[in-house]
């Protein structure tokens, strides 16, 4: 502070703070919840109505992306000029591509949620009057069947991966400027979406949850968690091998200060090893058994651990990425 050249706060300040970290988490969560809903749809008999997990997916995905968008807008230096982003596009900018993806995704996500809850909305006297005029649009999309599902899956993968490309495009930030980042965000986003869907479905939609679907998603998440650990391993070994500033930053991010603690205790400990432990010690027996009741408590603990880990991963990447340069 006392240097002759003046205050240096602007050079050490974090430009993208908690709002962006939470947005990155919510975008991945939304995409992941949608993907798990569609995965369940593809293995369900729909004549019995939509599975509770699909309902949970829609209930998470739409509010998550909406809240995320609100955070993005209010984090702008000029929040009320956000509309400029929809009138000036720059396809070289990952952010601009993101704006396009998000516009299409959030629009179609609303339709997807309306399809899932069509019966409820159309039959409830409070919502029917507003809902019915749009019924023909909703039924048209519903009629597209797998085509609509595939469009949504591709969009969801795009949303989860673009949040990684957004950061990995930054040449100035060695920790973020790594090729595996979009993959890491995609895998952890899907993992968080599954965890969220399982938690919401066993709390709110337990009656309509098919256990075979629940077990299927649980086993899928069990494979994603080690994959995430391996991607993190690849990322840091890659940073060390790239040498120069990349190697220095890689080492700092694993050893210095609060962010190193967040990485080891939060992301690796709570977020990845924790769920593996819960699955091995408790949920595995449920997966193997044909008549055990749904272990709601263990499922909620497991989901809580996964979600905590994923949100910490977003905070870690964003803050450590901007701190160590």
């Amino acid at each position, binding site marked *: 502070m006392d240097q*002759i050249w003046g205050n240096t706060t602007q050079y050490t300040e974090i430009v993208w703070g908690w709002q962006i970290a939470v947005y990155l988490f919510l975008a991945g969560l939304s995409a992941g919840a949608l993907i798990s809903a569609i995965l369940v749809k593809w293995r369900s008999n729909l004549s019995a109505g939509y599975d509770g997990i699909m309902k949970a997916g829609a209930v998470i995905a739409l509010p998550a992306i909406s809240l995320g968008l609100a955070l993005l807008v209010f984090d702008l230096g000029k929040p009320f*000029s956000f509309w400029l982003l929809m009138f000036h596009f720059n396809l070289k900018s990952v952010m601009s591509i993101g704006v396009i993806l998000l516009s299409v995704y959030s629009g179609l996500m609303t339709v997807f949620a309306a399809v899932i809850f069509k019966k409820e909305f159309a039959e409830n006297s409070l919502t029917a009057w507003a809902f019915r005029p749009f019924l023909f649009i909703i039924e048209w999309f519903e009629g597209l069947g797998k085509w609509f599902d595939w469009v949504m899956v591709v969009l969801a993968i795009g949303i989860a991966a673009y949040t990684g490309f957004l950061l990995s495009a930054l040449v*100035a930030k060695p920790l973020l400027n790594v090729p595996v980042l979009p993959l890491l965000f995609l895998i952890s986003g899907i993992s968080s979406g599954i965890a969220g869907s399982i938690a919401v479905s066993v709390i709110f939609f337990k009656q309509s949850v098919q256990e075979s679907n629940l077990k299927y998603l649980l086993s899928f998440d069990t494979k994603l968690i080690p994959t995430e650990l391996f991607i993190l391993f690849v990322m840091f070994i890659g940073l060390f091998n790239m040498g120069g500033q990349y190697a220095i930053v890689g080492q700092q991010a694993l050893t210095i200060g609060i962010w190193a603690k967040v990485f080891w205790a939060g992301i690796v400990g709570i977020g990845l090893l924790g769920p593996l432990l819960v699955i091995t010690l408790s949920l595995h027996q449920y997966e193997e058994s044909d008549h055990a009741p749904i272990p709601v408590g263990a499922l909620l603990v497991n989901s809580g651990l996964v979600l905590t880990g994923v949100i910490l991963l977003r905070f870690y990447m964003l803050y450590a990425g901007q701190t160590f340069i």
Partner: protein
Amino acid sequence: MGNKRYGMLYDSNACIGCQACSIACRAENKVHDDVHRLQVRIEGPKGEFPNLRMDFHRQSCVMCDNAPCVPVCPTGASYTNEEGINMVDEKKCVGCGYCITACPYQARYLDPKTGTADKCTFCYENRIKPGEKPACVSICPTNALIFGDLNDPNSGICQAIKKQATIKYKELLHTNPKLIVIPNRHGGEK
């Protein structure tokens, strides 16, 4: 007739770290009190006695030819003008901060008053257009700064570059800055 390509030569040997450039910049461009477009950092002493050295570092926009701040801008508010100067169109800028995080030279900031990205412009609107030199160049008491057209081989800056070894900050990134630096010749190699 090709376009002009403005550049600046900073002689870190002639610089005495007086910060007159920084003050002139502030006065000329009405820079907000909480932020800087320009600082001269004094780094050191480095090395071992008697081969000690003090390095001077100009902290400002280096006017990259391949500016990382330009392609990332979602609205095209961040652009390179026809004379090679990287600028921000305040009207198009939404203040997302992407250019600030993309800049390897920490040259940009979000203006606390307008909420838009801002940076050194080589005083383009207020001084270059009327035919003057940037404020920092005019004020420098030791003539450590030379400003001119890098496309004109007879310009003062091109003549000065020919006479001595120069570097550019973070050359490995291939940003090709137009702020060219004469590195410190004094003291030891450390």
